[in-house]
């Protein structure tokens, strides 16, 4: 798949806007607070229409898909995006579209497209990223139980939740604003990356609407997890590329022993290895975005996710090392990427989850 001219132009414009409007000091301040996000980033996302990109036109969206959203995610990752809402908003859009319920679609999609509603997707529990039999239960129109470490959890207006029910697994939508304080509790997790708005969410009879049940729910959950993973992989690739370039620039400018440190092979070769990991991740991302809806989408998504985790982890680790002592100061801000590489590696299923999923796809053998 090759990006067309429109897509190229969109990526460039996104990069330009984000470069102009991102302020490192603001991002650093977020680290010391819980429940806050970068308002300027989110205002830009809404104003630029990124929230509407992958929503069907009949519901006020632009009717585009993962390719375009992925391009935005990559640029957002480059500047350590100021809020997690784009990825999870897309997850909610996918969940709603899977339901086919015209009333629900008409209620939520236009508002998601306009950025008026923020969403969380709560699948993970203590024993895994996507438990087949969640401990959270759905009974008589209400949810009971706890989802841990929900990204966007502190700010979301709606949540897509996986739960067990007499009909098997369900995907349920919770209107978080409508739930009373007794029915829903959100406990902030004081995290190393507070801008992700992590919360433990305890449902004590919060009203919920079932979007899908049984096999269809499991399928829809996996598909939307994969779609969000592909977006996250783009974000990770953008972050990895930013780290590689920062390290390259520093290696050209910083001198030691009478030469730029970039002339030492242990530095130079590390940068070349980073370049390789970034390009491999990028290629997998582009491929996965183009395979949405095809039989091999899950496999392609797993490849994108695994190579992007590796690229971002390696690039942050090595870029920090190449920066010497200045790599570890607060104000230098490289730790923004270090923290983000870790939080994105944990959200949406860690590397082990995707390794197993991919191995199952390739071998037919479960773990």
């Amino acid at each position, binding site marked *: 798949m090759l990006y067309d001219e429109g897509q190229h132009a969109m990526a460039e414009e996104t990069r330009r806007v984000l470069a102009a409007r991102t302020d490192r000091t603001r991002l650093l301040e977020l680290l010391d607070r819980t429940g806050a996000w970068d308002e300027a980033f989110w205002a830009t996302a809404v104003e630029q229409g990124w929230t509407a990109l992958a929503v069907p036109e009949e519901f006020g969206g632009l009717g585009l898909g993962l390719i375009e959203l992925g391009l935005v995610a990559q640029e957002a990752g480059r500047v350590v995006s100021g809020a997690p809402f784009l990825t999870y908003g897309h997850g909610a859009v996918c969940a709603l579209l899977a339901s086919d319920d015209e009333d629900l679609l008409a209620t939520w999609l236009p508002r998601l497209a306009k950025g008026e509603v923020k969403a969380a997707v709560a699948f993970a529990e203590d024993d895994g990223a996507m438990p087949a039999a969640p401990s959270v239960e759905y009974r008589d129109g209400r949810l009971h139980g706890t989802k841990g470490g929900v990204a966007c959890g502190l700010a979301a207006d709606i949540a897509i939740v996986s739960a067990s029910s007499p009909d098997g697994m369900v995907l349920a939508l919770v209107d978080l604003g409508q739930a009373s304080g007794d029915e829903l509790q959100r406990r902030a997790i004081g995290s190393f990356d507070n801008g992700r708005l992590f919360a433990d969410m305890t449902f004590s009879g919060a009203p919920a609407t079932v979007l899908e049940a049984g096999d269809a729910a499991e399928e829809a959950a996996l598909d939307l997890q994969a779609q969000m993973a592909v977006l996250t992989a783009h974000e990770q690739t953008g972050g990895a590329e930013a780290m590689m370039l920062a390290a390259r620039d520093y290696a050209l400018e910083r001198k030691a022993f009478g030469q730029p440190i970039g002339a030492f092979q242990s530095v130079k070769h590390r940068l070349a290895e980073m*370049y390789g990991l970034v390009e491999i991740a990028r290629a*997998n991302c582009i491929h996965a975005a183009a395979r949405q809806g095809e039989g091999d989408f899950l496999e392609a998504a797993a490849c994108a996710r695994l190579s992007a985790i590796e690229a971002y982890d390696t690039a942050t680790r090595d870029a920090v090392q190449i920066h010497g002592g200045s790599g570890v100061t607060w104000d230098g801000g490289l730790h923004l990427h270090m923290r983000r590489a870790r939080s994105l590696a944990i959200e949406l299923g860690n590397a082990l989850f995707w390794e197993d999923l991919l191995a199952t796809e390739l071998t037919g053998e479960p773990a």
Partner: protein
Amino acid sequence: MTDLDAWQERSRAWLASVAPEFGREARAGLSQDEDLAVGRRYMAAKYDAGFSGITIPVEFGGQGLSPLHKVLFETLEAQAAMPIGYFGVSTAMPLPILIRYCDDKDWVRERIVAALKGEEIWCQLFSEPAAGSDLAGLRTKAEQGGEGWTINGQKLWTTFAQYSDYGILIARSDPALPKHKGLTFFWIDMKAPGVTVRPFRLANGDIQCNEVFFDDVAVADSQRLGPVGGGFSVAMATLMIERYAASDADGFGPPIGAFVELLRSHTINGRPALRDGRVRSVIARNHALRQGLDSIRRRAMLIMEAGQEPGPEGALNKLFSVRSRQKLSELALDLQGSAGLAYTEGAYTKADWAASWIGAPTMRQAGGADEMLLNTIAEKILGLPQDHRPDKGVPFNQIPA
């Protein structure tokens, strides 16, 4: 159907039609000489079928098609395991160089047709005992006098020199100049008096590489390719021609699917090997890596199809794929129990784990060592400085040996 789709269809159909005669199974158990003879017949058949010299102009006996046509055909040809190894160097670099630098066009056409048909073989005489990665450190001498030149010295590694009729050679014509400047490029008649070829065995048993000695070998000035002292640029131009070679995300080792199939019948701690977390991790990671390389390759083809230059990321394939092949092959041998100890010399590297394992280090050197590839990526793509080079700008004969 586009022109390229049609070309691919035609290529596939022809390769399938000749597979019974020239494919891997037809050649099982042949000696190298017998295999070479089959290879020559294959080359002749390929020439007649119109798949030879794909990017070479029609007036020189080629097909006059695009690099993309060439990559498409060669990818299928490699998958079909045709006997092309003996002609790999011969039909790749030397021919375009002759076209570019040789004045006698009729002679060039004759050589090209003979090489394409497998009747004649060319070799590439670049590396020496003291000049591999540092090609410009070479010492073979070319001295001018009377009618032409006299060559003295030694080349090393020369692939299939033992079967070669001709070679392209780079030699030092002026040791008083800095090392890159005093080099001149020639074509050589390998049967000329004073040329001695000595094959030697590689670690995997292959007899592919040679030492080639030159003792007062007389070369006419008409055999010079490019200007006196311009040899290094000609050599670089030669290497650039191969930019669009067929690549293989499996590093010319077995694919991941073969690893999976191999492990289906094995167990670890009494459980199916494919359920072992370590094995699953290796499968997933190597697959993700190779998928990425494959996507890079496919994207480059699309870019070429659109008439543009592919990005520099194509340079990653050999570096990443061969390392993946090497480690995966080690693990494949480990996991087979005592069967992993068996070794059949000369087995096919894409189908045999031991052959893949023992041949991998060769691929990490030939055509640019890993470390040189990393240097190239760092310098050419990322703009990092060259290594410290104490011999830079120093006249060659003043560089301490």
